[in-house]
């Protein structure tokens, strides 16, 4: 007995020692690996390359817009435009309420005491707590007079002077002088300035829609509003809607098409339905090949043949998922209960009827839940695939990011994508419950 006990305690001690070793070794190995990747990914260099000013621009641009007040120094004409775009330009002679024009003198109130004045001599900006920055052209150069020493937020050279304050930015060059005022909100989200409904409050609009006289005698105010919103040139709501629809369409067509193709193939690859082992083996390898080649490569090959657009994306999803579905369906078919098939066989049913009444009812819940799961994950994939094949919201997003200009549009697209994915999540969860539990 004693011998057994010694043996046992030896085993247990050894077991503990091994466990203790593991408890230290596993985190140690993970830590070492992370250290190696930190070096491989050049984390130290990244800290230097990181553009925190870009991050600041991005974060403020996500929820603000800026209005440009520009004076052309050659002819003295002053104009106002949102984001400096012609689509967002104020009609000539009209200005936001914080701009006053009296003859040659333009006064811009940037808020918190920051005041910019353009006049015939040049331009000046009053910064509270600092003083007055005065700029006037002298021949070919610009003369700056401001309290010394110049702070870091004034960037001055002979040809260009830029002032950046929390209230707004101010740029003077020989050809023009510009002031940017930042304000919260996505301006012109509903109507652009050339629309008769621009710059009206919600109550005013409601009033117009419900009781007001027709702005356009040919159609109702509500119809006019919807069409003005739909054709908004700044935010392009109709294009965005179509892009979202295309993305969902890609995911739907791809997933459902793959499921339809993979179902018969799954029967051919399942050992209890296809007695020919070589054929089974061939189908399995085809599935493995399709899955192994990966969606990225299929997407590239297909976009060469079919050109950019939603159908290419749908076909790419279809091909990739045929491989996954084929494998999963054949596994589900191999795990069925043979008793029901036997029961159907005893009534003299042929193989097609046996599959229809003995097999399909058993595997439907598994199949549907997998197809729905893929549908929801493909909505996300379709965003990425759209960026590669050139269709859907993914394309709009990558374009908006690459121009590095309209970050509020990026924020808008991001919000829409997240909402779309969440809606598909909810829809597929709801369908799964309805169809499988039958409640």
């Amino acid at each position, binding site marked *: 007995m004693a011998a057994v006990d010694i043996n046992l305690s030896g085993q247990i001690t050894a077991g503990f020692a091994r466990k203790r070793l593991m408890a230290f070794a596993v985190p140690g190995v993970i830590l070492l690996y992370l250290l190696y990747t930190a070096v491989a990914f050049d984390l130290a260099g990244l800290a230097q390359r990181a553009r925190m000013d870009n991050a600041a621009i*991005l974060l403020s641009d996500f929820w603000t817009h800026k209005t440009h007040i520009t004076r052309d120094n050659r002819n003295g004409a002053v104009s106002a435009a949102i984001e400096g775009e012609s689509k967002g330009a104020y009609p000539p002679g009209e200005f936001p309420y914080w701009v006053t024009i009296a003859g040659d003198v333009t006064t811009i109130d940037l808020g918190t005491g920051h005041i910019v004045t353009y006049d015939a001599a040049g331009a000046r900006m009053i910064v509270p707590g600092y003083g007055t920055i005065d700029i006037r052209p002298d021949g070919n150069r610009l003369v700056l007079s401001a309290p010394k020493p110049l702070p870091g937020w004034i960037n001055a050279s002979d040809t260009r002077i830029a002032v950046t304050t929390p209230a707004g930015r101010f740029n003077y060059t020989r050809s023009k002088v510009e002031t940017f005022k930042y304000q919260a909100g996505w301006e012109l989200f509903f109507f652009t300035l050339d629309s008769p409904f621009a710059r009206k409050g919600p109550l005013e609009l409601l009033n117009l829609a419900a009781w007001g006289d027709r702005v356009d005698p040919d159609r109702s105010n509500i119809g006019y509003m919807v069409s003005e919103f739909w054709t908004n040139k700044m935010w392009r709501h109709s294009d965005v809607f179509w892009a979202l629809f295309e993305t969902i369409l890609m995911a739907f067509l791809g997933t459902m098409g793959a499921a339809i193709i993979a179902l018969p193939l799954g029967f051919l690859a399942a050992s209890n339905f296809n007695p020919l082992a070589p054929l089974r083996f061939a189908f399995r390898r085809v599935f493995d090949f399709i899955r192994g080649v990966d969606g990225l490569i299929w997407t590239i090959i297909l976009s060469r*043949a079919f050109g950019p657009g*939603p159908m290419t994306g749908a076909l790419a999803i279809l091909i990739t998922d045929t491989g996954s579905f084929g494998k999963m369906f054949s596994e589900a078919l191999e795990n069925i209960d043979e008793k029901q098939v036997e029961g159907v066989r005893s009534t003299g049913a042929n193989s097609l009827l046996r599959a229809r009444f003995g097999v399909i009812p058993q595997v439907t819940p598994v199949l549907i839940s997998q197809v729905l799961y893929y549908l929801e994950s493909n909505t996300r994939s379709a965003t990425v695939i759209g*960026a590669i094949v*050139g269709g859907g919201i993914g394309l709009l997003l*990558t374009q908006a990011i690459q121009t590095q200009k309209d970050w509020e549009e*990026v924020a808008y697209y991001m919000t829409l994508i997240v909402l779309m994915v969440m809606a598909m999540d909810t829809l597929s969860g709801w369908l799964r419950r309805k169809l499988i539990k039958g409640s």
Partner: protein
Amino acid sequence: MVDIAFGPERGKRPDTANLQDTYLEMVRRKRMYGGILLALFIATMASGWILADSRNAGGFWNGILNVFEFPSEVVAEAWEKRAAIPALFVKHMPSLIETLNIAAVATLLGGLAAMALSLLATRGLARWPTMIPVFRRSMDALRAIPEIVIALVLIYILGGGPVPAVIAIALHTGGALGKLFSEVAENADLKPVEGLQSVGANWTQRMWLGVIPQVAPNWLSYALLRFEINVRASAILGFVGEGGIGYDLKLAMQWGQGRYDQVVAIFLLLFFAIVVIDRTSDYFRNRLVKGR
């Protein structure tokens, strides 16, 4: 006499005389509904494909004839330069390793975040039970954001390189694994946790010693599956953004003719890497979940 088989109420009894008719009527109705649903589904699919085709730059029938044109062109050029391909394998190996590293680090970091999130969001285990909905919703939000959105924004801030991809994939992994982990943890036996509580263990100790050993095999299996998915995601992100084998592929593709040997070498590298990883992780997952 009350017919107890159908309950005491009169009027609600099935019509036993016409049992067969009633049954056939039900079957007919069911088939009709099924038929209508099927017709609707077919109509949706057909119109969907037609719409997608009309919004595509190249038509379907045009494209289907050219589907093999590009691959055959690529393969033909690569076949001519086949002697150079082994050297290209070596050349692109570092990019492949970078892609795998991105996936591995993202899976590790995301997995660690998912461990914490899932325990905090599981009923019966949570540290702060009132906060469960908060952690659940935050996991949902992490899952909902596609990787490409975060990656592209981070590329703007951090510049190119692998780090934006790591962060993007890790965030998504945290949400996706967190949900799966918490489903596993829900089924964990609470007796060890109670035992530990009775000897005065704090929450971290209870989780580490009472729950983690129970769920570790299933968690590891899910994490391996996620690693497979993340390798593919990291290749795609490389193609859209910067870094890894996806970026090499994009450069070679943009060059076009003359570099198709590179394209083939990268295709093959990626293909074999994915197959090997799938196979290995399949094997280990089977061992983990079904026992050795």
